[in-house]
């Protein structure tokens, strides 16, 4: 087990390293000079050169890569070209929006999807099952940004139940902050819930066909008890896999949703940073997200072992 964990961590670190090279090279070839962008159309050439020097953009590629990587290792993500503040500060401000958003969406998606999946699987073939799954099927097909658009106009503009968008900051109070995350969470979470409910149902149905389910029934357990005591836990592995993927998706794939609701989150930070050629911010955010994905995958793998004892002794 310990060995397994250490192997996974090692792989994770190597992946991260490879990712850093990919990110750095990709962003190196992005056309557009951040210094020129900052100074605009009236700037003189020597002003641009002076700014390039200030920002360290005149250094050779390798030097910049190693100083960046060295910085990352010591927790220094560099200084934003455009905001001229440490990237880490920028990121931590944005994480305070994106992380709660992702977590609330994930929470919503899970508490809706798993009961729905159980409900549907336990009534396989009934009208209730096909009705629920038809709704889920439509849910999977709805682009979340379109859904978000509809939500804003119904709940924010028409009914005025929640803010249309924006984020007052956690300083304005937990409730105020939470309120402005409700619609985005729903827009993100519901389509994910549809996917998760389908996965839960089909995983449960797969498990319900296993021999040990028959053994349990032969013990005298009712269908319901078998579903909860034997099937659910075995069905968790595919569900956990999807949950892990969804977390990564929710954390990073919020670019569009954050734009619809003008939330100052990581997605918008990185999108904005790309258009402004604030490469050091892009690199920092991407590395953070990649690290998160790797970490989440690791946690998901470890949680497999919690769920399934067969994996605990794996080499």
């Amino acid at each position, binding site marked *: 087990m310990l*060995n397994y964990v250490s192997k996974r961590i090692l792989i994770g670190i190597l992946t991260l390293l490879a990712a850093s090279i990919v990110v750095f090279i990709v962003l190196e070839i992005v056309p557009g000079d951040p210094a020129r962008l900052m100074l605009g159309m009236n700037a003189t050439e020597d002003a641009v050169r002076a700014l390039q020097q200030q920002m360290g953009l005149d250094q050779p590629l390798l030097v910049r890569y190693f100083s960046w990587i060295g910085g990352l290792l010591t927790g220094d993500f560099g200084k934003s070209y455009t905001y001229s503040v440490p990237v880490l500060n920028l990121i931590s401000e944005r994480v305070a929006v994106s992380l709660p958003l992702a977590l609330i969406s994930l929470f919503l998606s899970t508490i809706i999807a798993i009961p729905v999946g159980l409900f549907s699987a336990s009534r396989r073939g009934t009208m209730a099952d096909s009705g629920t799954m038809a709704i889920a099927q439509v849910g999977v097909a709805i682009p979340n940004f379109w859904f978000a658009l509809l939500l804003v106009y119904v709940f924010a503009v028409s009914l005025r139940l929640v803010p249309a968008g924006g984020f007052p900051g956690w300083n304005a109070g937990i409730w105020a902050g939470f309120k402005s995350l409700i619609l985005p969470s729903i827009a993100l979470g519901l389509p994910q819930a549809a996917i998760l409910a389908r996965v839960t149902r089909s995983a449960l149905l797969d498990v319900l066909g296993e021999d*040990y389910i028959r053994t349990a029934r*032969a*013990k*005298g357990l009712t269908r319901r008890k078998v579903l909860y005591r*034997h099937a659910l836990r*075995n069905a968790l592995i595919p569900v956990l896999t999807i949950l892990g993927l969804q977390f990564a998706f929710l954390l990073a794939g919020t670019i569009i949703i954050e734009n619809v609701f003008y939330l100052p989150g990581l997605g918008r930070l990185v999108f904005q940073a790309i258009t402004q050629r604030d490469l050091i911010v892009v690199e920092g955010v991407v590395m953070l997200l990649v690290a998160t994905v790797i970490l989440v995958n690791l946690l998901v793998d470890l949680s497999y072992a919690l769920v*399934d*004892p*067969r994996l605990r002794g794996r080499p």
Partner: protein
Amino acid sequence: MNLLEISKLTLRSGAFEALKGIDLSVRTGEIRALVGESGSGKSMTALSIMKLLPGGARTGGHIRFDGKDLLTASEAEMCRLRGNEIGMVFQEPMTALNPVKTIGEQVAEGIRLHTGATRAIAEEQTRAILDRVGLPPEKFPLSRYPHELSGGQRQRVVIAIACALKPRLLIADEPTTALDVVLQAQILDLLQSLVDEERMGLLLISHDLAVVAGMAHSITVLRHGEVMDTGETTQILSEQTHPYTRQLAQASMHVPERTPHHLVHTTPDGPLLAIRNLTRTYPGRRKGLFGRDPDFRAVDDVTFDIKPGQSTALVGRSGCGKSTLARMVLALDHPTDGQIHFAGRRIDKLAPDDLRPVRRNMQVVFQDPYGSFNPRHKAERLIAEPLYLLDRELSDGERRDRVHRALERVGIPRADKDKYPHEFSGGQRQRLAIARAIITEPKLIVADEPVSALDVSIRAQILDLFADLNDRLGIAYLFITHDLAVARAITDTVMVMSEGKIVERGKTEEILRQPLSEAGRALVRASPDLHKALARRITEQG
């Protein structure tokens, strides 16, 4: 009154009539065998009693348990009966246990459900029953997970679950089919002693008369959803009045006729296959960053010869290394050490291209008649596949001739060459597999459990075919099997393998009559034998 009384049980699923009016009874303390080949409806009968049939199946008739008709009982009543009054043991121990729950939890679950016992009391009882089925708590704590147990041990856990509450009726659906003969004997012994102790009724389902002959009081023979024959074991087997019963019994004891001159093909050139000090080790499981479990020697310093035309059996329990050995002979796996010579030439170090003439003379037949063909190709293409090994490409006509000849030799009509594998029955598929093996007219066929997945009557036919080909074409066999009946049927010499080593070798008849090694004795003792079982029963009854 009978404990279980089934009358006119019918079962249909859609248009298919799986059971056509079954009558069957089990008395308290009686062991009733239900025997039939695949598709006869024996498992469906068992599941009908438990009312655990797959959705869409409709039943008719009556199943009375202790006077109560189960077919009209409510689901709640059935839940009270299952596990409490009626226990059931399934065929496949590897999948019958929930992999994420400890064996303790799984056994205790039924106990707590039906008796309402506290956790502590249920665990106490669980320990007792596990101890009783041969899993003493000091060696097998309740916290074990199924994957930490072997197949035989898992089947004991399943039996513990079924017997935990001392049900009055136990149903065992082919409980030993997935196990090797030695384990089979152990599990059957366990079932017998449990049933005797608690005076349970046992409905023992099997496809092999020989397996049940030793312990069943009475036998019901099933075919295509109908009862063919029923009665007391001794009477049924000794008189064999019903033709189908007779057919089953004979197939079970079948020995192909073989001409005694089959060693005339021996040439002075020496052995066809010579194995010298062959060893295959697998690296041990990695434990820490640097530590490993010790290496596992699957095949350990094996040496033997096979002469041209000689039929040799390699017998042993599952996991003894016989399949690994076969794969190395076939050059599908590489030896760690030692040498393989074929027709005087060393082959274990040859490059794939140089292996072609060797492969041409050495073909293979596998166990599973379903998995051994690409489902997307027609029979002709499948059979012709080894012709790829010939040095020159055949014309279409030559190829077709070869295919026809091979089909003829295995007794399959030429016209069937345009069929797909799923259109053949299991036995026919094994014939196709043999046709594929002989199409290059090889000198040696390695057959890995070629008949163990077949019903007894089919098995007899396939064994006849093997014997016939050996006689007519002089092909040598290396027969891998755990079933001594198969070895006895068609081989001249036997090698007994145990833990990677060959522990005993010699003439088939001699070894089977008087094994010297521990492994050989265990195999012989456990091997089900209709003759012996019947003889013993007759003497017991006086």
